[in-house]
């Protein structure tokens, strides 16, 4: 698979782990590859978004071009050059 270069948007709550960067560029063939590439550059981010078995933490959402990757096949979803990934801790609430 071809490695693609994509922008990864970093939420404010994680920017302490990316030296303040609002977005970073990373490479990979799949979403998982790209996130692993980001973690290679910013190791502290790994413990924030992944569980011990390398799954996404349940409170971490990742979006590929505004679509939640959990509905796109998860971390194995292939990406295209110029795609934009966004990492975001969940926003939700309610009385239930």
């Amino acid at each position: 698979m071809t490695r693609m270069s994509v922008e990864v948007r970093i939420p404010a709550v994680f920017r302490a782990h990316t030296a303040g960067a609002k977005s970073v560029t990373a490479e990979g063939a799949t979403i998982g590859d790209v996130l692993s590439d980001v973690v290679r550059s910013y190791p502290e981010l790994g413990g924030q978004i992944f569980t011990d078995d390398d799954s996404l933490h349940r409170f971490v959402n990742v979006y590929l071009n505004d679509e939640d990757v959990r509905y796109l096949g998860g971390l194995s979803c292939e990406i295209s050059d110029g795609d934009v990934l966004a990492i975001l801790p969940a926003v939700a609430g309610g009385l239930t």
Partner: protein
Amino acid sequence: MKLSIPRHIYDEMVSHCLDELPNEGCGFLGGGDGEVKVIYKLDNAAASPVYYRPNDKQMLAALKDIDDKDITLVGIFHSHVMSPPFPSPTDVREAHHADAAYVIVTLADRDSPATRAFKVIKEDWRDEKGEIEEIDLVVS
């Protein structure tokens, strides 16, 4: 600690919540240093009277706009349609943005909505439990 909201933004926030009835309304407040400058009214993708989850596309666009404007997410607001403006256990469990105030508008009395603001303090942002600390909400 306080959160200052200009009157016109406060009124827009409450109106949005009223417009979303019977479901909970939600949105973001952008600004800096506890001063709200911009409101982002978001659709509640859960479309529920007891749960909110902002529309993904609108939420990401709002966050990008906040970054582009070089401001910060100072508040995340939602409404409680029948209950007091105080964080529920679900609100606390789902509070993962430590820098933002959680603003709750109660519409229990439709003719007299009331609003309070809180920080949810957690040791780790992934914790399900946290301490609730009310902050002063100033409408000016």
